[in-house]
């Protein structure tokens, strides 16, 4: 599905990602794990085209490398970004409408479906998104991304800044999405939770992939897990 080859990302003179390659197969949930500053978000930004990068990015055999942000989204990539970035001045419903902007038909049905899935969003459909709680905003950000009916969903730190109880809810929701067959690339600092959902994981540090493997192999590697979770 998504294939990344020798990706390098620069922020000015700083090389944030130093030539990584990985792929996400259809229906898989793949995690990019690693500490702060490892290059996880830079990788995501390169995939969406927001950050300048070298290397090749292909989605379903389509080369995305030279396409602008909007075209990549239309090709089937959707992002729930770090920090959620819901449109605070727009209502919940308007946020979802924008998410489905390039969907021609069935927009209203699609929105209604999300309100059924998350009754709390339905209750607050006319409320400004900025007034929602962090967890609700995260749900909205994911729902907004899925309104585009993407081939692959990029989730950047969905658990960031949320209470543990809410984090569990969010991960449950991601699990449900995966069970429905959604292909997911998950970026997380919360390695334990992320590995529970993932089929495969890559561990990034300093802009390089330092370890990779199935969730079971990585999860059973105690030294690695201790490093990842910060428990030594």
């Amino acid at each position, binding site marked *: 599905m998504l294939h990344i080859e020798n990706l390098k990302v620069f922020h000015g003179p700083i090389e944030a990602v130093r030539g990584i390659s990985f792929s996400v197969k259809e229906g898989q949930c793949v995690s990019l794990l690693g500490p702060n500053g490892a290059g996880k978000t830079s990788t995501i930004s390169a995939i*969406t085209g927001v950050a300048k990068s070298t290397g090749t990015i292909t989605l379903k055999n389509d080369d995305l490398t030279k396409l602008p942000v909007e075209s990549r989204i239309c090709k089937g990539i959707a992002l729930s970004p770090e920090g959620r970035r819901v449109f605070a001045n727009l209502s919940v419903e308007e946020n979802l409408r924008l*998410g489905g902007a390039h969907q021609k038909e069935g927009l209203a049905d699609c929105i209604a479906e999300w309100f059924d899935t998350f009754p709390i969003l339905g209750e607050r459909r006319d409320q400004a998104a900025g007034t929602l709680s962090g967890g609700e905003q995260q749900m909205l950000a994911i729902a907004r991304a899925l309104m585009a009916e993407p081939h692959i969903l990029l989730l950047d730190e969905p658990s960031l800044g949320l209470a543990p109880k809410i984090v569990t809810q969010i991960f449950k929701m991601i699990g449900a999405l995966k069970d429905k067959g959604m292909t997911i690339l998950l970026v997380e600092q919360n390695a334990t939770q992320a590995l529970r959902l993932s089929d495969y994981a890559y561990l990034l540090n300093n802009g390089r992939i330092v370890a990779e493997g199935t969730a079971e192999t990585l999860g059973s590697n105690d030294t690695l897990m201790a490093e990842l979770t910060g428990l030594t």
Partner: protein
Amino acid sequence: MEYIAQQMMNALSFGAEYALLALGLAIVFSIMGLVNFAHGEIIAVGGYTMVAMTSLALSNPLIVIGVAVIAATFASVTLERVAFRPVRYADPTTGLLTAFGVSIVLQNLFLLLVSPRPIAVTSLYFLEWPIDLGSIRISSLQLFETITTIAVIIAMTLFLRRTVLGLAMRAAALDFEMVRLTGIRANRVFAAAFMISGLLAGIACVFIMARRGSVDPHLGFDPVLKAFVACVVGGFGSLPGAVLGGFLLGAIEVAMLVMLPQSLGGMTDAFVFGIVAMLLIWRPEGILTPRREKGDKQ
């Protein structure tokens, strides 16, 4: 009583003109952080189009108005494409300098290619009819101006609330990158912003021309300066703020014209800007400051 009603009508029509122009400035600013000082030249394009139409012996006022508004809209979209698109993601200062540059180039083009002198346009005669509303007498211009502006504001509100492009423009004021990340093309949003801005300038141009009766290369300077002040008073980048600021400025201006003694007549603007300065001491960021926080709650 009648005198007060008459002056309120004056204030409304002054305010309507400022509100139209301020809204045009604010919609571009809210999206790309650009203070478009070339807005005045868009108005002049409309004015010169009217001159051209008249010299082509087309004097039907509806056609003249229609073509002038279309010309202004087209000019605005062209400026975006030619001048502002290349500096879109550059530093705000670069955009500001570009706007000044465009403004100077256009003014000099009018000077060289047309004439530095005012040229009269007479085809807007139907905006000079007096209308009696009970005991007060207003000009048809005031009535048209107020009604048109109200209609424009309603149409804008519907556009910004109901259409996807309108929603995208509101969202873009907060987080443009995220709008692109929903798959909406940035070019479309920018072009739409300039198109609306030009359309509003074109409509305002009709009223400015009806009031002044002639066009010269600096036609738009004064109105846009006032519109800029209206934006600042209302809260720069806020669309409702621009409208509010426009009407407020119109009211202050008419109040000063009425209340100042004859001998201080030439100082009206000084007093108006003095009051504006005081307003800004009270609310340094304008009355309706747009919220700038990104999605997450702070």
